């Protein structure tokens, strides 16, 4: 294909797409009236416009929406809203002013304190829970049930994880009635070690118990929900625990009780 012909085709396509400047458009129409081969070429090019959109729209229907949404949730947890610096400065100014008024001049020197507290506010819990929820929502009952388990390997893995947490995580301690332990892994979240035990439940699909060797943190003491999952979060003896799954709140509560009793509440 010579360069002139490419130009012609490109011109014809732009004509069909209504993207030519008016004077070029008119000039081309003039040529099309007299040049039979050019108008045949136009006809060939014009054939396919319509079905394209319909064809590609079928792909939208096929998109794995639920998985994509879970992916977005995980991304939102991983890349949280940046703090607004202006807002923070304003807050700092307000805090300084308040302290100046109520605490005299000395207050000025402490004005930074409330801001530091805000700065260091513990967002680990929230983000961690959201990340686990995002990950868990990628599984359904069938996918978690299909994970193959090698008992010897699992035993060794549990003992390794127990060392990380400084916790007796032997098979009986990790076992939960009505659930099958499918996977035991050491994960990292925001630079902190998190052990995740993934269970399959015939009734409810996947359930996970996560333990972070991270002191601090406070739970609500009751089952909360996020997306379609229920979870119970609590902290005990220098560790944080998260029991989470698509099971009903009552069931999550009962499972959390069992774990809390074993590992300290």
């Amino acid at each position: 294909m010579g360069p002139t012909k490419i130009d012609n085709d490109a011109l014809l396509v732009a004509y069909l797409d209504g993207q030519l400047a008016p004077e070029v458009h008119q000039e081309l129409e003039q040529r099309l009236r007299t040049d039979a081969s050019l108008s045949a070429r136009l006809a060939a090019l014009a054939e396919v416009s319509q079905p394209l959109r319909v064809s590609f729209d079928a792909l939208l229907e096929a998109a794995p929406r639920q998985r994509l949404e879970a992916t977005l949730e995980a991304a939102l947890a991983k890349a949280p809203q940046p703090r607004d610096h202006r807002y923070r400065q304003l807050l700092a100014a307000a805090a300084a002013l308040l302290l100046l008024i109520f605490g005299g001049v000395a207050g000025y020197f402490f004005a930074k304190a409330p801001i530091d507290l805000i700065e260091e506010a513990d967002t680990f819990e929230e983000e961690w829970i959201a990340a686990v929820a995002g990950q868990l929502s990628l599984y359904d009952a069938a996918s978690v049930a299909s994970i193959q388990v090698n008992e010897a390997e699992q035993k060794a893995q549990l003992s390794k994880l127990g060392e990380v947490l400084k916790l007796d995580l032997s098979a009986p301690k990790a076992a939960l009635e009505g659930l099958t332990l499918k996977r035991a892994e050491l994960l990292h979240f925001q630079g902190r070690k998190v052990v995740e035990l993934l269970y399959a439940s015939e009734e409810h699909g996947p359930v996970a118990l996560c333990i972070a060797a991270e002191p601090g943190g406070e739970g609500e003491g009751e089952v909360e929900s996020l997306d379609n999952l229920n979870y119970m979060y609590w902290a005990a003896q220098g560790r944080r625990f998260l029991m989470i799954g698509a099971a009903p709140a009552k069931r999550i509560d009962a499972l959390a009780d069992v774990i809390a009793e074993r590992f300290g509440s």
Partner: protein
Amino acid sequence: MTATAYDVIAAELPALLPRLWRYGLVLSRDPIAAEDLVQATCLRALERSSQFAVGTRLDRWLFSILRSIWINQLRAQRIRTGQGLVDPEDVLVTDGERQIETNIFAGQVLKRALGLPEAQRETLLLVYVEGLTYQETASVLDVPIGTVMSRLAAARLKLSALQAPSGQNHDQEAR
């Protein structure tokens, strides 16, 4: 307080996910790689939210991000690991069993379109399916408008051969 770029992105992203996935599929011809692309795109968009100008088209901005991730990371990786060659016939099987449902003709057009060279099929998608102007497409793809036009012409000729298999012997490729 007015909404920040982050707020806008977080609010509008959910509705755009299927279109991002489709663009990822058209580029990679692999449903799983398309999911990976959407994931990386969401993350990068949120991390770099300050670079998005509120009031401009978010979908165009996201397309550019997705494309740059594809070009710079996934494509090279897939070619290295030998996953780069995908039969367009296989693309339409999304989860191992369910064939994407289309009427027969639309299905043929789609297969044919996915069989085009990468540069042509993505240009086709952006202009005829996503409705970008030539100028917008040129800017997402970072090529001159003339290149957009010649890619469209080449793509259309190949696709029209589907309807007129015994028709003229159309010339190939114009990039």
